[in-house]
C-alpha cells in the first residue's frame, strides 16, 4: 500500500517540481517584466505543491536533488524546454488543464491527496486562466503570433497522450479525464482560431513512458543544472 501511494506522490510531485524549474528558467529572460513575475508566481505555486507531495514520498531534498534521471516519474510534457513564449504557453495550457481536472477530482474525494488538491486547485485554476488568456491573444493575434502558437501546439501535442495513462494509487476515471481535457483544450484552441492538432497516425511514434522513468534528452541537462549545487556542496544550508 505504501508503495502505491508513494508512486502517486512521486508522479504528481515530479510533475510539479520539473515544470516549476522550467518556468523558473524564464527569470531574467521573459519578454516583459510583468510576464516574468506571472511565470515566477506559477513556478512558486508548483514548487509549493511539489514540496508537499515529495515529502509524502520521502525526504524532499533527497528526492529532488539526489535522484538520477531514470528515477523521476514526471510526464515528458513538463520537461520539454521552454522554447519560445508560445511553446511555454502551449505547455502551460495542456498541463494546467490536466492538473485542474485531476486535482478537482482528487479534492472531491477523501483520499490522501484531497487536502493538498483542494488548496492547489485554486492555484491551478489561475494557471489555466493565464495560459488560456495568452493562447487566445497569440492565436488570434498577428500572423506571426498565430503561426508560432500553432507550431507550438502541434509540437507538444504528442506529449499529451501520456497524461491519461493510469497512475498507480490514484482512483481516477482516466478516459473520462481525457475527454474532459480534450473538450476544454479544444474549446480554447478554437476560440483562439487554432485548429486542434490530430493525433499521430496509427503506428507512428508517440511520446510517453515518463511515468516509468524514461525521459527525453533535454531533461538530463535540466537535472544537471537543477542538482549541481546540492551535489557539489552536500548538506550545505543558508
Amino acid at each position: 500500500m505504501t508503495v502505491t501511494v508513494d508512486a502517486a506522490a512521486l508522479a504528481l510531485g515530479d510533475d510539479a517540481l520539473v515544470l516549476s524549474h522550467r518556468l523558473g528558467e524564464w527569470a531574467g529572460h521573459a519578454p516583459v517584466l510583468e510576464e516574468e513575475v506571472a511565470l515566477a508566481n506559477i513556478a512558486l505555486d508548483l514548487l509549493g505543491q511539489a514540496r508537499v507531495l515529495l515529502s509524502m514520498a520521502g525526504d524532499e531534498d533527497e528526492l529532488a536533488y539526489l535522484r538520477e534521471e531514470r528515477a523521476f516519474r514526471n510526464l515528458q510534457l513538463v520537461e520539454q524546454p521552454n522554447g519560445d513564449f508560445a511553446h511555454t504557453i502551449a505547455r502551460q495550457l495542456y498541463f494546467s488543464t490536466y492538473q485542474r481536472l485531476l486535482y478537482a477530482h482528487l479534492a472531491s474525494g477523501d483520499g490522501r491527496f484531497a487536502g493538498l488538491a483542494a488548496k492547489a486547485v485554486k492555484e491551478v485554476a489561475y494557471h489555466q486562466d493565464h495560459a488560456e488568456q495568452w493562447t487566445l491573444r497569440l492565436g488570434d493575434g498577428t500572423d506571426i503570433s498565430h503561426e508560432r502558437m500553432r507550431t507550438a501546439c502541434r509540437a507538444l501535442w504528442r506529449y499529451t497522450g501520456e497524461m491519461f495513462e493510469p497512475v498507480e494509487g490514484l482512483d481516477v476515471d482516466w478516459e473520462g479525464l481525457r475527454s474532459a481535457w480534450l473538450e476544454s483544450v479544444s474549446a480554447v484552441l478554437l476560440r483562439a482560431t487554432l485548429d486542434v492538432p490530430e493525433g499521430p497516425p496509427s503506428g507512428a511514434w508517440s511520446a510517453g513512458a515518463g511515468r516509468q522513468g524514461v525521459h527525453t534528452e533535454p531533461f538530463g541537462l535540466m537535472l544537471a543544472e537543477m542538482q549541481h549545487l546540492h551535489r557539489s556542496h552536500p548538506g550545505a544550508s543558508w
Partner: protein
Amino acid sequence: MTTNDWPLWEVFVRSRRGLSHTHAGSLHAPDAELALRNARDLYTRRGEGVSLWVVPSSAITASSPDEKDPFFEPAADKPYRHPTFYEIPEGVQHL
C-alpha cells in the same frame, strides 16, 4: 523588451472590505484583462487585497505642479474647515 508597445495602467487595490481602493502603482499590459491579471501578480501576491481596479493611465487627468499654489495654497490657513471640533464616538474605525 518591447514593453514600450504596451500602454500603461494604474492599479488600485482594496485591502479589505469596508476600505476604499488605494493607488498601488502602475504596470504595462496589452489590454484591460491582462492588466488585471498582471496587477494580481504584481500587487496582491502577499495577500494585500480583496479587490482590484485597473485604469488606463491615459484616462487620468492630473493637476499640474504649476497650478499648485492656486489649487492648494488657499486651503492651508482655514482650520475651521477641519472637523476637529467633533468628538468621535468610541468604536468608530477608519476615520
